[in-house]
C-alpha cells in the first residue's frame, strides 16, 4: 500500500512538472491558427457579405501586416501559411516559458534546501 501511495505521489509530481514538447506545441498551435484563418476566410467567401458591407472588409485589413493576404481562396492559403508560422513561433515561446519557469522553480527549491541543510550543519 505504501509503495502504491509513493507511486501516486510520484505520479502527481510527474503530472505537475511534465515538460511541454516545444516542437509539438509549435506544430499544434501553428496548425490550429492556420486552420482558423483558412476557415474564417472560406466562410466569408462561401456566405458572401451582409447587406451594406463588402466581402471580408475587416478581415482583409490583416493584409497590412501579412503582405499578400486577401479574402480570396489564394489569399486564404497564403494567410494560412503566415498564421502557421506565427502560431508556431507563439507555441514555441509559450512552451519554452512554461518549461523554463518549472526549471527555475526546481532550481530555487534545490538551492533553498541546500542552504537550509548547510545552515543546520
Amino acid at each position, binding site marked *: *500500500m505504501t509503495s*502504491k*501511495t509513493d*507511486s*501516486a*505521489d*510520484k*505520479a*502527481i*509530481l*510527474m*503530472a*505537475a*512538472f*511534465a*515538460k*511541454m*514538447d516545444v*516542437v*509539438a*506545441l509549435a*506544430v*499544434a*498551435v501553428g*496548425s*490550429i491558427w492556420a*486552420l*482558423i484563418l483558412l476557415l*474564417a476566410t472560406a*466562410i*466569408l467567401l462561401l*456566405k458572401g457579405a*451582409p447587406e451594406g*458591407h463588402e466581402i471580408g472588409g*475587416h478581415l482583409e*485589413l490583416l493584409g*497590412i*501586416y501579412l503582405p499578400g493576404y486577401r479574402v480570396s481562396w489564394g489569399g486564404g492559403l497564403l494567410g494560412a501559411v503566415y498564421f502557421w508560422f506565427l502560431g508556431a513561433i507563439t507555441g514555441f*515561446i*509559450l512552451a519554452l*516559458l*512554461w518549461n523554463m*519557469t*518549472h526549471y527555475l*522553480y*526546481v532550481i530555487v527549491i534545490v538551492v533553498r534546501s541546500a542552504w537550509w541543510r548547510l545552515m543546520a550543519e
Partner: protein
Amino acid sequence: MSNNAFLEPGGDEPVQLNEKLLHAAVKLNTLLLAAVFGSVSGLAMFVLTYLSLYRGLPKPGQFLNLLGVFLPGYSVSHAGAWVGLFWGALIGALLAAMFYRIYARSIASQVQDYLRSGGSKDDLMGVTLRFDGNYLGLALGTIIAGGLFITTSWLVFRGTAEESVNAVLLSQYLPGYTVSMPGALIGAIELFCVVYMLCQLFSWIYNSVARFRGRKPR
C-alpha cells in the same frame, strides 16, 4: 471512497491520492501559468498598440481603440500602451488561472492512468506533458465563450448595442448571434462547441507529434 481514491485493476484496496500534494501541484502550476500568460498578453498588448501607432491601418488605432470600451483608460497612444500592458497582464493572468483551475481536473485522471499502466521508470523531470482534449476543450471553451457572453452583455448594459456594428459581424461565423442577451447566449454556446472541437484537434496533433518524436506522452 473519495473522489480522488480509486481501485486498480485486480486490486482490492483503494489507492488514495494525496490531496495536499495534488492541491499544491495545482496551485503551483496555476501561478506559473498565470505568470507566463500575464507576461505574454501584457507584452502583446504593448507591442500591438505600438504597431498600430506606427505601422497601423490608414487610420492608426481605428479598431484597436474599440478595446477602450472594455479596458478603462486604454487607447492607441503612448500612455495607452502602458495601460494596455497593465490590463493585458492582469486579464491574461486571471484567465490563465481560471483556465488551469478547470483543466487541472484532468490531473487526477492522468495519475490514475499512470498507476493503472503500472507506473514507469521515467525520470521525474523527463516526462512530457500530454493534453487531454476533453478537459482542454472544457476549460478553454468555458473561458472563451464566457468572454463573448460577458463582453456582449457589457455592450447591452451600457446601451450601445445598436451602435455595435463591428461586434454584430460575428454573426457571419456564429449564426444567430446578435448584440443582445439571447444573441449572446446563442453565440456563447456555438463558440463553446467550436472551441471544444478545435481543442480536440489541437490535443490530437500535439500528442501525435510528441509521440512521434519519441517521447512517450504522459
